[in-house]
């Protein structure tokens, strides 16, 4: 092109562009109009977006909630939250709908002449306070109880603790986390002297081997599972190993599946320890410096009604004695007990034993809802302690929590019969004195003995010994094991029952007073997730009708019973920060330091201990945990009495209390599915979740089904010694049990599978075993 032509064309280009620019700037195309057009569509001024942790599982994903015209109309994954960086699961994605089921409870309801009648708050609260006071005066404080939840906010749990332990002066405060995490808690305390994981979610991007001990992580902690599968995608040597009694989505995604007989995890874990010792793969230096060995009584019953009681006899043993104990758990013996081929046991042990492999163990209900739940938690820790694979990035045991705040509320605030906030114990005089000081109570006010754990509370409600219970944020009439037994007792003795909830459930159906509660973002609050991350959210929408926060309800009744001094915060708005900041004092200096309320408001949560605004990612490890002194390398400072050492426990395999036999030849396991949260009271009211998973069913192994002549979709009857139920058979759907095993999800309140389960629990943790009992299957002819 010659230069004249070039110049001509450039001039043409320039003037054309200038013409366009001028047109744009004038009138409709002005900068203001263009900005307004952008803003109107994409930054819709009618929607505000705010952060909150998800209402559901113990993962604690961050969500952004879109509020328009006073209603939550959308959520998005919060890309700034390190837990999930913008990803959610199907439940999280449908959170807004959880608030708007048509039958939301909006007014207090009092049972009068067999029918529920709407009442004002004054009348309802006065009635509760009156009945509680009467029962206290006539039968003693221990006749009154509060049963709360791992879905309580920190504020709710702290108010309940202060009200009942500080005001009423009894230790009848329990929560449904007793049914899900108690074994994990006692496991931690027995092994390390302190509760909660030493690692954090950062482990998922650094591990080489991920071992699932009986938890269906793909459905139950899906976003965390996705972090693990993403790790494997980027680092193709990474292995996922599933130890399970049935094949699930987790198994499908895993590189190897160890299909075990129920309860035999006790043997498998010991078998791995056996091989590590045999192969000389013990980290001798670590064990010598940081561990002690202990044993306890082993014939301790199963916590059953009228059964053998647990007598403690904890004592120190030597490493040699431990080796002698674990000697019998040869691969052959373990195969005999568990049905897992020796070869697989050896392979898994080799991975644990290889010094260059970073191994993360993960578990949840398979290990915790177990009549030896504490033991299996200890046994998994044993493996990590023997190899020194602990408190290291990508290398360590990680106990996953089921509920959004079983950690933050129940465990850390101490809403259990034996506990006080900040990891303290009612039985410890110093701890009581400390609490009495903060609560401004006269010395000696706090009751020094644990009174009733959850199963004990419900048994006593059934015998008439306990006369009143206030249930909040949980659904025991669906989740207690051996439901028929409890229903009988309740009908006979008619205790005074108050239930706070957001929807009618089988539990509100037995209440004398039903109180409408504010749900999730309808009040401000804090949750604490599995990785010690405390997260805060503001109130974003108004609750419907006259619903109020659970903590407000507790405080109002406390006032009426004369305990108003305990709660110097006048209203819900003041109670949010007030309760939290007072609770925070309990956490300082004891290795559980939580961040300030204003720090939490700004952050996407912070992992405690938070010292000088800095989170702790790996506990007990020098350099990462501010409580570990320079030069110590590791310090399990919860075990001062053992020289800051962790405990390797001698824990044997024992048979469970009820095994399949001639009359009841199948194992029954219960659990969850990704679409539904717990008893489904929230998620079933969401169209997409209900329609994807409308009703409960029973999974059968395809060969078992074929032998019985049962096809997919056919109706069958399950019968146990305690109850029976008719369910649709699910064959070759998302879960395939091992031969001789069944699985039933418990989200369906019209199919109460807990009428069949067994009221047996771990004698140390008092947590029931929902994973094992014996049933038979009968075909149903139409």
């Amino acid at each position: 092109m010659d230069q004249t032509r070039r110049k001509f064309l450039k001039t043409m280009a320039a003037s054309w562009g200038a013409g366009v620019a001028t047109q744009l700037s004038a009138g409709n195309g002005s900068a203001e109009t263009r900005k307004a057009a952008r803003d109107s569509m994409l930054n819709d001024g009618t929607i505000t977006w705010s952060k909150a942790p998800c209402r559901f599982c113990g993962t604690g994903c961050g969500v952004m909630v879109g509020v328009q015209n006073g209603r939550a109309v959308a959520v998005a994954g919060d890309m700034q939250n390190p837990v999930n960086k913008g990803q959610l699961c199907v439940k999280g994605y449908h959170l807004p709908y959880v608030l708007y089921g048509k039958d939301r409870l909006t007014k207090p309801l009092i049972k009068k002449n067999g029918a529920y009648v709407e009442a004002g708050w004054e009348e309802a609260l006065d009635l509760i306070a009156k009945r509680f006071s009467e029962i206290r005066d006539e039968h003693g404080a221990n006749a009154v109880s509060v049963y709360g939840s791992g879905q309580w906010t920190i504020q709710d749990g702290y108010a309940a603790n202060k009200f009942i332990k500080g005001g009423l002066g009894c230790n009848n405060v329990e929560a449904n986390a007793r049914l899900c995490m108690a074994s994990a808690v006692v496991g931690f305390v027995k092994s390390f002297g302190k509760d909660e994981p030493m690692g954090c979610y950062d482990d998922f991007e650094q591990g080489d081997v991920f071992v699932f001990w009986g938890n269906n992580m793909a459905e139950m902690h899906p976003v965390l599972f996705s972090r693990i599968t993403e790790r494997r995608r980027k680092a193709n040597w990474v292995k996922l190993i599933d130890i399970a009694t049935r094949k699930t989505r987790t198994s499908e995604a895993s590189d190897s599946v160890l299909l075990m007989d129920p309860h035999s995890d006790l043997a498998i874990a010991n078998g791995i320890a056996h091989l590590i010792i045999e192969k000389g793969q013990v980290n001798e230096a670590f064990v010598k410096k940081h561990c002690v060995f202990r044993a306890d009584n082993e014939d301790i019953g199963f916590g059953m009604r009228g059964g053998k009681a647990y007598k403690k006899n904890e004592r120190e043993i030597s490493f040699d004695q431990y080796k002698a104990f674990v000697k019998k758990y040869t691969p052959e013996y373990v195969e005999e007990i568990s049905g897992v081929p020796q070869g697989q046991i050896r392979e898994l042990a080799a991975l644990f034993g290889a010094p260059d492999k970073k191994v993360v163990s993960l578990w949840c209900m398979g290990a915790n809802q177990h009549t030896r739940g504490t033991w299996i938690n200890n046994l998994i820790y044993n493996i990590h302690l023997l190899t020194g694979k602990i408190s290291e990035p990508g290398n360590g045991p990680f106990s996953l929590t089921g509920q959004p705040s079983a950690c933050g509320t129940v465990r850390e605030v101490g809403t259990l019969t034996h506990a006080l906030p900040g990891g303290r114990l009612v039985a410890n005089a110093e701890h009581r004195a400390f609490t009495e000081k903060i609560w401004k109570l006269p010395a000696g006010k706090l009751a020094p003995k644990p009174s009733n754990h959850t199963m004990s509370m419900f048994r006593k409600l059934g015998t008439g010994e306990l006369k009143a219970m206030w249930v909040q944020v949980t659904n025991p009439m669906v989740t207690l094991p051996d439901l028929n037994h409890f229903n009988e007792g309740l009908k006979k003795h008619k205790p005074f029952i108050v239930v706070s909830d957001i929807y009618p459930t089988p539990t509100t159906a037995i209440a004398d007073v039903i109180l409408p509660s504010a749900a999730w973002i309808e009040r401000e609050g804090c949750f604490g997730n599995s990785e010690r991350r405390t997260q805060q959210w503001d109130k974003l929408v108004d609750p419907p009708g006259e619903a109020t926060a659970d903590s407000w309800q507790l405080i109002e009744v406390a006032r009426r019973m004369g305990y108003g001094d305990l709660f110097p915060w006048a209203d819900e708005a003041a109670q949010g920060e007030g309760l939290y900041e007072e609770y925070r004092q309990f956490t300082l200096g004891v290795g559980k330091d939580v961040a300030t309320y204003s720090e939490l408001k700004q952050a996407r949560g912070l992992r405690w201990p938070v010292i000088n605004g800095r989170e702790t990612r790996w506990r007990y490890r020098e350099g990462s945990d501010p409580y570990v002194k320079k030069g110590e390398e590791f310090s399990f400072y919860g075990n001062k009495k053992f020289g800051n050492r962790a405990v390797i426990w001698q824990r044997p395999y024992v048979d469970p209390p009820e095994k399949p036999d001639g009359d009841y030849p199948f194992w029954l396991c219960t659990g969850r599915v990704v679409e539904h949260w717990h008893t489904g009271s929230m998620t079933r009211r969401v169209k997409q979740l209900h329609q994807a998973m409308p009703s409960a069913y029973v999974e059968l192994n395809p060969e078992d089904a074929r032998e019985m002549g049962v096809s997919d979709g056919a109706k069958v009857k399950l019968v146990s010694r305690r109850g029976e139920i008719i369910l649709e058979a699910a064959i070759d759907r998302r879960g395939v049990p091992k031969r001789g095993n069944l699985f039933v999800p418990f989200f369906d309140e019209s199919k109460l599978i807990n009428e069949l389960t067994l009221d047996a629990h771990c004698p140390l943790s008092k947590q029931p075993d929902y994973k094992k009992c014996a049933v038979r299957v009968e075909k149903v002819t139409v």
Partner: protein
Amino acid sequence: MYLIKWTWVPILLVLVGCGQGTETGGVEPVAREARAELRAFHGAPPVIPHGVRSEGRENCLACHGEGMQAEGRIVAAVTPHPTWFNCTQCHVEPLTDALFVANTLTGLAEPEIVAMPQPFLPPYIPHRLDNYREQACETCHIGTQAAINLRPGHGPRTNCRQCHITNYTEASGFGTGVAAFPPPSP
């Protein structure tokens, strides 16, 4: 010699209904309604509108890896996040029409396509992009699986985001709309 005067092109596109300027911005209402039908609210993962025989992601990718089109309509959209492993973590298949209890919420609607103040300006992206990988535009807009009325009216440009913007505010937490999952190693 090709002399392309770009202001004329968009006007043509307007007339043919491929660009902006018509009431719905050129995207057929049917397509937008179909999009909304599958989603609880704008931005929610779509439910699976067909039977699923096998849950494995290979089965999903068989159709959604490359996408499928029939008679000018998207039959199987290309997944905007092909590296994400667990499809059924977010996408579920309705097995019934029934409800357990009715729900009173109408989730956030799919946004309107706003007419641009000047016809040739590249249209703003009228939908959320979180959970979409980079270069996911072709999922719905380019190629044989893309509905005809969603295809751009311009040439071989592959860096769509250079001209088409979202511009969510900081407060919305969406950033530029591209999710960085999982979090980077410390």
